[in-house]
């Protein structure tokens, strides 16, 4: 069996001046993920190595880290795919965020932006007895945004975020997209007005880092593009929404 050197960035702000890398030897076996390797290190070599994780299958969003310079979820990353030519894998915390300890970052600004876009639906006052009717196509348009697991990989890969934590960020803009595009939402106009502020959709430099970083293959840039267009024709969009909401309790006509 071959061994791999796992290099883990260590930093405890209470005692360390600056971060450093620790090296651990791990056996490379079939099916082992990077998260498995971190668990092995923690459980068998150094109990103080600190990282977040929970679900183990890329749905809870806990384990986003930076591996060999790329943001990803480590729980579904096969170890063997990330061994460099020198037999090493280098794991660092998500960049551009304050480090709490080792691989654990402080996502405060990330969550503040999430709250800022008011992630909750604002439904019409009249709620039907049963479900609001939505067509499969309307649902499909939301599918990407709905699937976002808020791991922060895109946020910490974004050059604009790196420069200013005031920028809403790709994750929260994707969430805003989810609400703006949802036919059940009654406040798309207000939302678009807010996104039109200096730190909103027009701050995006379209560098596409967020797309590369997203472990779920989502496309925040495209969502931001769409929002920009809607900001430009906000009133027409609001009117169309008001119109659509007239028939939310009616069956979708099937041709």
């Amino acid at each position, binding site marked *: 069996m071959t061994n791999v050197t796992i290099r883990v960035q260590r930093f405890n702000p209470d005692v360390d001046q600056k971060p450093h890398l620790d090296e651990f030897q791990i056996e490379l076996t079939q099916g082992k993920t990077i998260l498995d390797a971190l668990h092995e290190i923690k459980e068998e070599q150094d*109990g103080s190595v600190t990282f977040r994780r929970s679900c183990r299958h890329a749905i809870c969003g806990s384990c986003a880290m930076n591996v060999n310079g790329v943001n990803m979820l480590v729980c579904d990353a096969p170890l063997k795919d990330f061994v460099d030519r020198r037999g090493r894998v280098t794991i660092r915390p998500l960049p551009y965020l304050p480090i709490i*300890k080792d691989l654990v970052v402080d*996502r405060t600004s990330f969550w503040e932006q999430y709250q800022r876009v008011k992630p909750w639906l604002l439904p019409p006052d009249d709620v039907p007895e049963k479900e609001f009717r939505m*067509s499969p196509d309307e649902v499909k348009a939301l599918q990407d945004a709905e699937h976002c697991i808020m791991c922060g990989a895109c946020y910490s890969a974004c050059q604009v975020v790196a420069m200013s934590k005031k920028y809403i960020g790709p994750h929260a803009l994707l969430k805003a997209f989810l609400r703006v595009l949802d036919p059940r939402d009654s406040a798309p106009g207000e939302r678009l007005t807010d996104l039109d502020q200096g730190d909103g959709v027009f701050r995006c430099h379209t560098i596409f880092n967020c797309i590369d970083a997203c472990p779920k293959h989502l496309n925040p840039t495209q969502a931001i593009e769409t929002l920009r267009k809607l900001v430009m024709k906000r009133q027409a969009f609001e009117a169309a929404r008001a119109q659509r909401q007239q028939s939310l309790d009616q069956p979708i006509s099937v041709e």
Partner: protein
Amino acid sequence: MSQSSDITHDVLVVGAGLAGTWAAMIASQAGVTDVAILSKLHPLRSHSGAAQGGIAAALNNVRPINPNEKRGDLEPIPPGDDPIDSWELHMKDTIKGSAWLGDQNAIKIMVQDAIDIVYTYEHMGCVFSRTPDGRINQRRFGGHSVPRANFAADWTGHVLLHTVYEQACKQGVKFYSEWYALDLIVEDNVCKGLVAIDITTGELHLMRAKAVMFGTGGYGRAWRITSNATANTGDGVALAYNAGVPLMDMEFVQFHPTGLYRHGILMSEACRGEGGYLVNNSGDRFMEDYAPDRMELAPRDIVSRSEQTEIDEGRGVEADGQGIHLDMRHLGHERILERLPQVREIALKFAGVDIIDHPAPIQPTAHYSMGGIPADVNGQVIRDADGTPVTGFYAAGECACISVHGANRLGTNSLLGASVFGRRAGYAIAEFIQGGAQLQPIQGNPLERNRQRIARFKSDPANGKTESWAAVARELKDTMTTNVGIFRNETRLRKALDDIKRLQEHFGQVRVMDKSARFNTDILGALETKHLLTFSEVIAASALARTESRGAHSRTDHDAPDNGNWLKHTLAHPNDDDGPTLSYKAVDIDWDNHPPEVRKY
């Protein structure tokens, strides 16, 4: 731990999954202003978000095209046509699924509330998959006689969790994110608060509340192969038990038939709901021999036992013969991408198998805990067979035993149960607070007690010998897997109890390497391992006493249900010296309408 200060709230909820978040949101909506949730994970990381397949409710949106086919395609029910489903039928299926151990009064409430709770989720913004005419789409699920699993692709739990969290934020509920509860304070049968660590700083806090509610989730981490998140260590049940509260029906642990081979990660039951086959090493659909009518869509306990029998008799797949094949190739490319995108990713990433072209290797995986903290239909925790309440203490979701799932839960009924009873607990708590509940003075010094507990993990051991919590946990998982798994018997269960006793002694030597205060997950690992040991002993002891086979509890030495002696709930009461003392509680049964029958599928 450095410093401390008391924190007080009217209501303190532990756990930000569906159960806890519903309770907090509702209590707040009902007018209680000071409601807080603490969660060891960020709320959106809670395991509810991992649920894939769906949430059950008799909405009557779809029906089989051919009414006689148990597995064929579905179509929307045209307006005006007769409904095929009802809460009565949902109730009947759930009772049978529970092997008649579910309390029928509670089941009735759950299935009746189901319809409203699913519509409420929809109104709150949950993006469900749709039928062509715009209704919530439904699929088949095991043990349900009609399609009633309402779904959002195969990430249903994810959208439900996000939706309810968003609403709780909107409602102004306060969240303590990444705070870990490690001690529950119950004195004179009154719950007064708890002790928690702020994980980020490592500070210990005494948190006092007029009402405490647990929605701390399940405890599959006591087994080697499990679908459960690493956070599912049963902290809540262990905390309650340590505080003197009994645990109910802990012997009933569900093994899901389709965990990914060697990983245990879930391949949703939706795979079979959508029409997937289970085959052995000769390519036979072996379910024909075990449940000829429902086949792959028999309830989970039956399918998992069938798989294990195939494996034990040498008909498994993979090099070690410990796997079974889940074959979905005939569903076709399009259907798989539309309905099972997440499952496909999982098989690709972890097993290197594309389910569009190849069968996926799977095996039974520890999945769901039917037992837990005994509570009534309002989430009020009770302490004995008479239903004596523990004042100010509530529980719902997977950590609770209400008991709607009895000896075996049906798929899609647990997102439902967590939501329905979380919501009901919210209302009950609001009533309790508004009825004049007060903060109660605490007699002991729980903060100091827990400071010492933590300090001991960091100290040097008297004799220089130390154990690692990880090694203890590993051994525990080995014995639980071998001896308290799908098939049990007296010898194995006694062996497990001996092992657990020994491991509990070893645990005294456990020390951590991380001596720092900040974000110390080494300490959390030690605390969680202790919790695993605590409830595993209860599981093994309850299983040993129950000399029958019922639902998920299957004894090779007592291989049939024994309604005469065992149609009753186990209550395991803590007893400092030698493990739990067991007592029993009657099951709520409507003898006229739903008497026990032979359970055949």
